[in-house]
């Protein structure tokens, strides 16, 4: 009787140790949910969601600190995708974070007016503004995400919003109307 108990206990402990070792050895790194949320966000790093960028916002959503409707650049499409991924209700964009833009925009600096104060360079989250103190600044249009964060700091209001005209290079087919979106497969 005692042999049975001891044998079983010892064998089970050895197996437990093997499993404990392999759970450390074959540990899966990273939280895959944060990565999935991050890929759905538009990566404008605009900070309109009140977080420092898209990745911190994704982490906040994964931790349940932030709601899914705080991303104006992503708009309704991002909210629907996030609701689908997280299995929660779709809700309209939170107006406190901004408005949805129908067309993608970029900013340009009126170079005649610019005084070279560098304030907009510090505000730009994606380093799309080129310039130095007392030198004229300019926006690298291919890098600009249209977050408009550089507009409030400008002391001379020389930054203006332009809609991006679709060209052969950046044209994409427009999304269908929301009512025609197929229900996700169950």
């Amino acid at each position, binding site marked *: 009787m005692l042999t*049975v108990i001891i044998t*079983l206990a010892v064998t089970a402990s050895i197996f437990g140790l093997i499993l404990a070792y392999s759970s450390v050895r*074959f540990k899966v790194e990273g939280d895959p949910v944060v990565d999935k949320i991050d890929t759905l966000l538009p990566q404008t790093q605009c900070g309109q969601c009140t977080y420092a960028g898209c990745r911190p916002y994704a982490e906040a959503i994964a931790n349940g600190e932030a709601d899914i409707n705080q991303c104006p650049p992503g708009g309704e499409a991002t909210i629907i995708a996030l609701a689908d991924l997280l299995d929660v209700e779709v809700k309209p964009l939170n107006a406190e974070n901004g408005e949805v833009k129908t067309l993608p925009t970029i900013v340009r600096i009126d170079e005649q007016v610019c005084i070279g104060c560098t304030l907009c360079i510090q505000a730009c989250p994606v380093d799309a503004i080129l310039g130095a103190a007392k030198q004229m600044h300019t926006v690298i249009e291919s890098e600009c995400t249209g977050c408009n964060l550089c507009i409030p700091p400008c002391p001379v209001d020389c930054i203006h919003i332009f809609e991006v005209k679709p060209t052969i290079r950046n044209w994409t087919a427009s999304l269908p109307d929301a009512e025609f979106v197929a229900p996700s497969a169950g």
Partner: protein
Amino acid sequence: MTEYALILLSTVLVNNFVLVKFLGLCPFMGVSRKLETAIGMALATTFVLTLSSVSSYLVNEYILIPLGLEYMRTIMFILVIAVVVQFTEMVVHKTSPLLYNVLGIFLPLITTNCAVLGVALLNVQQQHNFIQSLFYGFGAAAGFSLVLILFAALRERITVADVPEAFQGTSIALITAGIMSLAFMGFAGLVKV
């Protein structure tokens, strides 16, 4: 060498675990709806079956028999199988997250796949040595994989076929499995092990 070839032939065709011994029917019916999941399940089961066959042989030979605890075989083998399945789950999760998602609940359910315990117990009953246990376990897994994949491929075609209403769904699947089992009866007497 002939002996091992005969063990393989016997377990894969003549004494097929699913269609002749009727072991492991749960995953056979449960995971055979799609060919990809069937292949994934077949791979995972092959790994688990071979490993658990060998390790239960070792446990039996070097722990249970020297201590005279042969009557504890079943509970010990269940422990071994549970550990092997857990280990497999960790390895699959690490190496192939996609396969991990596809297999889902069926991966831990290999624990309760009676074919796995059946192989371990039959190894003892037929007094296999280490190499024979290895081949017996692998052969059983290969036979299981063969019929699971064949059955999944059949079922994929059956879903688009014009089946009478009374036979739709699981009924036609069970009838198909029965006919496959009849077909495998044809291998009986091919080899005698």
